[in-house]
């Protein structure tokens, strides 16, 4: 079974140019990529050989999100390409929709980052049995839950209000996915106690914790050294 895919493809120059025009106009009086990255120049980030670091500042956060969306998109591309045994048509519909959303997120970040984007990551799904509904939905829940905790956990580091708004636009869709997958696994289990605390708040995770989970499924390891 094919479990490795080059996650980069296609030309998105048009979209990138329009994003940069938008970025150049400035939002809420806050400087963008170049200005933002200089804010953290006194943080010393020592790269680890063979590991892709997302970088610092808002660019680093967008690359962190890009890495996670690459992983999620690759997972659902595989799920839809090789459906598990006796997948009901409604589940194929749902999983195809989710695939399309994750590809959309991946391509958005790629376009937004342009030349600042990290490289395409190579996933490693060898631990996932794509023929098993239980295995696939279990992995899907893990990916969606991880995505929600990742966006919520890193959001306070975002310096540009427009980026924060877009991160918010994406994270609620990830939460919608997470709840659906929870319901498909066990009816009514859309607010699972391992993800939502006793105050009714979704848990969040710092990038280092998120990447421990994500790197399990990545051949290309990712770090976020400038975000503790």
């Amino acid at each position, binding site marked *: 079974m094919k479990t490795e895919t080059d996650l980069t493809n296609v030309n998105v120059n048009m979209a990138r140019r329009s994003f940069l025009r938008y970025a150049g106009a400035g939002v809420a009086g806050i400087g963008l990529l170049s200005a933002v990255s200089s804010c953290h120049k006194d943080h010393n980030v020592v790269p680890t050989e063979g590991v892709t670091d997302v970088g610092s500042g808002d660019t680093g956060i967008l690359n962190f999100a890009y890495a996670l969306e690459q992983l999620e998109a690759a997972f659902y591309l595989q799920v839809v390409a090789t459906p598990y045994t006796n997948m009901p048509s409604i589940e194929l519909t749902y999983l195809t929709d989710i695939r399309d959303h994750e590809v959309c997120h991946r391509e958005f970040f790629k376009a937004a980052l342009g030349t600042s984007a990290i490289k395409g990551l190579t996933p490693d799904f060898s631990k996932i049995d794509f023929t098993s509904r239980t295995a696939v939905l279990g992995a899907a829940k893990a990916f969606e839950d991880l995505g929600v905790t990742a966006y919520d956990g890193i959001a306070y580091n975002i310096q540009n209000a427009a980026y924060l708004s877009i991160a918010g636009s994406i*994270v609620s869709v990830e939460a919608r996915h997470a709840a659906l997958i929870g*319901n498909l696994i066990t009816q009514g289990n859309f607010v699972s106690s391992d993800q939502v605390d006793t105050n009714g708040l979704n848990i*969040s995770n710092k990038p280092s914790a998120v990447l421990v989970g994500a790197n399990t499924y990545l051949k290309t390891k990712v770090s976020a050294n400038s975000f503790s």
Partner: protein
Amino acid sequence: MNLFSIVEEIEKIDPEFNDRISPRRDAIKNITSFGSKVAVAAIPFALGNLFKKAYGQSASASVISVLNFALTLEILEATFYNDGMAASGLVTDAAYIAQIQSDENKHVTFLTSAISAAGGTPVTASDFVYLDYTGGSGSMAGPFTGVFTSYQTFLAVAETFEDTGVRAYKGQAPNLLGNQTYLTAALDIHAVEARHASAIRYLRSSKYNATVLPWITSTASGSVDTSGAASNDTGVAAVNANYGGATPENTTVQGGVNILTLPGATSSTTTVAAATAAFDEPLTMTEVLAILVPAFTKPKS
């Protein structure tokens, strides 16, 4: 003033500063476990006190106003589910509705405690002239008159409430920019509201054959539909505005990037359905209040 510069400056003097103010770090994890031995409600109080202590002052008026706005929505939601669960014979999917009811009431408790701890005055149900879930401006005979007698109407209104809650929290995120304590808490609630929205939609679709997906899929292309009609899949035209606004749910340009021109999973472009469903859009505080006041509630002046 840049919060992070302040934090960095303080860290030079007090290396443990971040540990003490961050709810996600070990110091606060300890407090959380300590809190589990006392009262859950004490946790936000502890956070608020820490925040005050860390900055030597209460949270700003703008932060308090965002939190009170959120609390207003949570009171509306919690009371809606409390009334629904109390209505005899209405709710048949208690596993879903009771879970959501529980979460919304916890949000009320959490925000009330957090606002008090931060030095603000939390709104309460008694601050409203009425809560009218029929949308009748206090007449209790508005367009959703059957809301607590017809389960399908109840579910449709619930779907709208949850979708609107998601949009409302999202709209406030930029007002909490850089604020680790309150932005993170707001987004954590925001995610739970999105889980609820997904679940209500799934329930309506899987059990009651409503034509809805767990996400908001808009069908109109090309124009930005500020009316919301292109994205409102509740089956209740009266709530179009909940899906409209200056940045409506059928938006296909995000951060200047035209999503429709990006490559999709199986073609060189992205469909309107995927582009609209992949992103939820915000509502401003003004937009949310225009939806709620006076149809559903009115604050005492």
